[in-house]
């Protein structure tokens, strides 16, 4: 298949946007999942609800809310621009933010399920053997939750690749910067004679998705063997 430079740019942007979003969101998702799975505090229900909001809101609304908060005049976006000269709207980083926020609840759920499946007795045992809370997390909980973390990464990556509404609202459709595969396919369909491009990019989407799924299956089998399950 011969890709045009524009199509190659869309593939590259997609991988970069999704990869960066997962890299930043995954540790956060693990932390939040840990707090939700093990923590007992006032406001836990509220945190749980907040995390899940992107799952139930129309993506365009999420993009709009991000514009309000992270826009150049927003309460977070303003200071970021003034202090660090860092603009998120209409940039590749902004596309990652939008995609990451949308994928976040799915990632938290995957990690939380695997954390909750760990026998709390193992942590009691680790504690009696002299391991403090941070030590226990890294030596027991995180390794045992590895399959869930892996699943979260894959699900998150796939969700980021597929994100449309939040990205186009917050980061716009800038070729080579924020135009991911779905946005490029949409643009191709809109323009006369773009059918071939749309078909090629759809095929690429399918290949990436299948590759991610197969890689996830292989890795999770290995992770399960590694943790002795």
């Amino acid at each position: 298949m011969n890709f045009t430079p524009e199509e190659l740019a869309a593939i590259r942007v997609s991988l970069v946007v999704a990869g960066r979003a997962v890299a930043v969101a995954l540790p956060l998702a693990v932390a939040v999942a840990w707090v939700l799975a093990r923590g007992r505090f006032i406001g836990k229900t509220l945190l749980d609800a907040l995390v899940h909001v992107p799952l139930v809101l129309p993506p365009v609304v999420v993009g709009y809310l991000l514009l309000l908060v992270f826009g150049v005049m927003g309460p977070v976006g303003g200071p970021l621009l003034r202090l660090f000269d860092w603009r998120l709207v209409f940039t590749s980083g902004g596309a990652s933010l939008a995609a990451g926020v949308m994928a976040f609840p799915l990632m938290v759920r995957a990690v939380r399920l695997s954390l909750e499946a760990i026998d709390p007795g193992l942590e009691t045992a680790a504690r009696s053997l002299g391991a403090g809370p941070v030590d226990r997390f890294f030596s027991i909980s995180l390794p045992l939750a590895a399959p869930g973390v892996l699943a979260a990464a894959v699900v998150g990556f796939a969700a980021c690749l597929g994100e449309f509404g939040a990205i186009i609202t917050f980061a716009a459709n800038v070729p080579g910067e924020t135009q991911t595969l779905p946005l490029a396919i949409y643009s191709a369909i809109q323009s006369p004679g773009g059918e071939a491009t749309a078909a090629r990019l759809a095929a690429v989407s399918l290949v990436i998705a299948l590759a991610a799924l197969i890689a996830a299956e292989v890795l999770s089998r290995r992770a399960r063997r590694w943790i002795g399950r």
Partner: protein
Amino acid sequence: MEGLKVDIRQRLGGFSLEVAFEAAPTGVTALFGPSGAGKSAVLAAIAGASAPDSGRIRLGELVLFDSATGVNLPAERRGAGWVFQDARLFPHLTVDANLRYGQKRAKGRPEVASFDEVVEVLGIGHLLPRRPIALSGGEKQRVAMGRALLSQPRLLLMDEPLSALDAGRKAEILPFLDRLKSTFPLPILYVSHSLTEVTRLADRLVVMEQGRVLAEGPLSEMLVRGDLKSLAGRPDAAAALDTRVASHDPERGLSRLTVGGIELLTPIVAQAVGAPARVLVMARDVLIAADRPGRISARNVLPAQIEKLAHRQDGTVLVTLTLGAGVSLLSAITEDASHALGLTPGAQVWAVVKSVAVEGIGASGLRTLDD
């Protein structure tokens, strides 16, 4: 070093725990009682997994918990090695890494057990490269004991470590527990509802029921008290005697054991001459004679004084007999026999024990009581 002193009160749902007892600095103290007596809750409080409402827990000079001064040492800093019913080995680590988990985190506590010694005593050298999933229940429990010991604990807490195993596996592990107890110099608190395990392993007994301590003291004394339902009320009530092997007589097929100036004949025991041997004598195997019997097949006919008569629910009488200083036996007889012989406390009688009824435990096989 002093032993463990516990004096705590704790409400757990509808259950109230109110216990005070001591454990010796070395040897096995058993918390004995039926399921639901609160034994495991006591262990959890000592380990620091739960905080009592009030009271204090001291280990020698070290205060683990004191509600009056607000001391509540975090579990990870108590140095309480904890062996659970389910072994709770870390599934993602090899046996070797499981064993070293606590060792790495021992934080400068004096060494009570070296890696090689623990592996040797528990016989787990061949398991080191394996994952927990590839171990049998008995092997898992041995590794769990090793892991707890290698954390160089100040005391060892064992929560019914054999209860999840079948009889065969139990018999397989008991010898390792004997060796563990005699090798490593630290207090061991052993929770169990099994009289078999307790009579075999314990030096001291704390009898619990419904969140309270009914009695505590040396095992041999507790067994012959006659007033503790969970011990004396059992059809297999028995006395334990800590004897020494005086001689073996292979021709007659007998061993001579001595305890407190008393001599007992038993079928040959496995222990060497001079070695300690704990024997169990079941109450139903001891006869009482008012006059010295003449020619009789029982090899042990011993002068005794009646100390106590306890009437049991099944209509029998449990008689505590004193043979000498600190040496007592139990005898279960019918109410009728008690009347006929006119038994009263202080009366001089003869205790008749068949030598085959004196059972060595420890080195020779497992004496299984009706658990």
